[in-house]
């Protein structure tokens, strides 16, 4: 039983990491796309960002280097990640369930972090001060986990209700979406039930997993909770729920990508590489035969050829 729980945990974590890396690789290896940004772009000059302006607002913009204010970009991202500012602004009815759900997930991550810290070898906790710190970590871990589970359950149940009851959402809800929410509810309900039985078995299992201690006792409910949560973890990167990865690209590489292409600058090489690709689009005006490159096609004039 203990071995099965550990294998599920290691496997879940492994699949999750591999799936995330696969997704990142899939998006990162796509060629540099045409500019398609949306304003406001938060790394713009502070004087412009408030009204959503760009460097195109200044005359002779190409004579000065492009200013990029990363701090503002990251604070915007942080507000979006932590507080779901976009939903707050544009879809208030969905904000509360989403916020509860996502904040619960962040607390789970915090709780795991605290749990790993509290599972460090006892030899590191020899002074009274470190013993106090250890107790505080354990307590914080326990409460973070409990609150996290409550928030996730509340959020997931509310989201499920909205997906079933709101006609607008219902029409675009696929069976898989309902399954995803049900999966979260089941996994975290079991984890919650396990914790309510007392944190010790759960703690023992997690600490055991960290040290690969096969002697740890695996109680049924916490074990089931961990196995289901591990399966969920493995499943997430292969669904649209991996939007925590997508969001980096949609925001940084599309919505906010206003990187200039100065002559002989770093982007020209990438563009030239893409222009050497050979399309096969079949419409006659394209003139794409699989031999001509994008550069050849862009330099051609189908109207002129018709005239001949």
């Amino acid at each position, binding site marked *: 039983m203990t071995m099965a729980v550990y294998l599920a945990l290691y496997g879940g974590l492994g699949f999750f990491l591999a799936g995330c890396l696969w997704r990142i690789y899939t*998006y990162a290896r*796509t*060629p*540099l*796309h*045409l*500019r*398609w940004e*949306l*304003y406001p772009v938060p790394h713009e000059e502070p004087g412009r960002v408030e*009204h*959503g*302006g*760009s460097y*195109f*607002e200044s*005359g*002779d*913009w190409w004579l000065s280097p492009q200013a990029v204010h990363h701090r503002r970009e990251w604070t915007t991202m942080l507000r*979006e990640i932590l507080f*779901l500012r*976009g*939903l707050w*602004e*544009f*879809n208030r009815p*969905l904000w509360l369930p989403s916020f509860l759900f996502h904040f619960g997930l962040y607390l789970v991550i915090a709780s795991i972090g605290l749990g790993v810290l509290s599972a460090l070898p006892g030899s590191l906790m020899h002074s009274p001060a470190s013993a106090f710190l250890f107790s505080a970590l354990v307590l914080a871990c326990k409460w973070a986990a409990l609150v996290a589970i409550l928030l996730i359950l509340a959020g997931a149940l509310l989201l499920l209700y909205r997906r079933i009851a709101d006609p*607008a959402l219902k*029409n675009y809800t696929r069976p898989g979406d309902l399954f995803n929410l049900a999966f979260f509810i089941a996994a975290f309900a079991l984890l919650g039930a396990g914790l309510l039985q007392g944190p010790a078995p759960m703690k023992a299992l997690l600490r055991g997993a960290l040290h690969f201690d096969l002697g740890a006792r695996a109680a049924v409910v916490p074990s089931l909770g961990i196995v289901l949560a591990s399966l969920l973890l493995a499943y997430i990167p292969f669904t*649209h729920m991996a939007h925590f990865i*997508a*969001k980096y*690209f*949609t*925001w940084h590489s*599309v*919505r906010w990508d*206003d990187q200039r*292409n100065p*002559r002989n600058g770093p*982007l*020209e090489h990438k*563009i030239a590489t*893409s*222009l050497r*690709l050979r*399309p096969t*689009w*079949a*419409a*006659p*005006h*394209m003139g794409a035969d699989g031999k001509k490159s994008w550069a050849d096609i*862009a*330099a*051609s*004039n*189908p*109207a*002129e050829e018709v005239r001949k």
Partner: protein
Amino acid sequence: MSRSADLHDLSRNDRMPLTHVENEELMPLPEPLSNAERQHPWPPLSAQCVDRYECGLDDTCAVNVPQPKTPEEEKKLVAQFLSGLDKLFDKENNWTFLQPLLLTMEHCTGCQTCAASCHIFEASGRNELYRPTFRSEVLRRLYFKYIKHGGLLSAWQHGRIRLNWPLVARLVELSYRCNLCRRCAQSCPIGCDNGLVARELRKLFSQEMGIAAKELHEQGSMLQLKVGSSTGMTAEIVKDNIAFIDEDISEKTGIEVHTPWDVQGADVLLIHNAGEIMAWPENPGAYALILTMAGVNWTMSSELAGYDSINYGLWYDDAQLARVAIKHVEAARKLGVKRIVLGECGHAHKALCVTADRLLTGDLNIPRMSSLPLLRDIVMSGKIQFDPARNDFPVTLHDPCNMVRLMGVVEPQREILHQLCPRFREMEPHGVDNYCCGGGSGFAIMSGNNFTDWRFQVAGRKKMEQILNAFADCIGPETQKYLCAPCSNCKGQFRDMLAYYNLWEENRILYGGLVELIVNAMVDVKPGFIEWEWR
């Protein structure tokens, strides 16, 4: 008829429209258009159109896709569509937008946040067919089924879809029910882009199947590549027209104006949307006057496409986008100018300054900028004397999506208006949160069948509401009002839409560009540059 069209209806084998647009279901408009008498009855499509073309989506028809004559022909078209779909997700064929498209396909949660941002969906009375996720969800299901080769498990996870010719035909039309304003993308918490989906669908149809709105392709980018301008004007005709405009402006303003042509090494190559030269000659005339008086070393070009900034490829076809952009910069390169400056045309701004920035390398990579900052600098420089009292009438500003939300040119035009127009008032919302005029993505020049009615009654409805609200305190005919739209396509939409609702005759709402207001306020110019006459 069903107003709550279902995704599966798209595959219905009959050719009956999936929805009807009824006036009483549309979003109500404020005074004076709240009166039912000022609404237009919905004209039906002609029998000839219904017999010949695929009109199975709604009450209008934008693209005129001929009906296939045999089942074999239908199969062939579906196979072409599938081939195009494949290419849409292939690096060799679609490096230009592969990443944003993949992200949009794989991560929409279906939260419908985008729906509240879409002016077409809202104005239609929340008609399901026009929901921004409707067409995206169709493409998404096709993607998972045919590109990711998903089986039953995938259908359960991502939803079912039945591909047949009726679905493809309806999808063609549906890709032309979006203005590509990307307001929905701005509000998406994930960053998915339904506007991009509409464009990519148009691209698939154009680049693989040779299907596109004729106004954009045959009469648009192809004509521009053939004679130099989508207006059909050759360089000689444009030069003649500009000479006439110079003469007219000189007489009207009392200041001698001479547009320079093909000046080697000029500081500025000014490229107008050639539609201005034909439809609103006072606009290029005003530019010529301002640049002359400010002492700018400028020129126009008589090279192929060098005198017409339009680039309709932005809305439907990457190859056409690249070809026209290259023609524009080639004109600049030949003249050895320091920079290209774009006149009042939103999509030309976006196409040449932003999107084509990742297409132009080496000596084609010539600085390109909006004319609005240049005009702002001229107005603020003190080189020209202004009397704002000459513009003492209510003025509101329309933000062209391509120039504002999609390019970030927000304040220069406002600085000018605050300086020169004492009764300037904003629309709400404005700036990067603006609503499209309803003519975006080519609609302003698309007028086949009864598409114009859809364009005014649905696509332009939200903007109409904004305009009327902005002038609510002076809506009566006793006050002349000016709707400033620094974009040729938007102006085209306003010209037609204000006329459709008779808002010049009955409420004295005139539309025009920004430079006209600048010249109207010039102390050295004879008063009355803006003539308050409908055109």
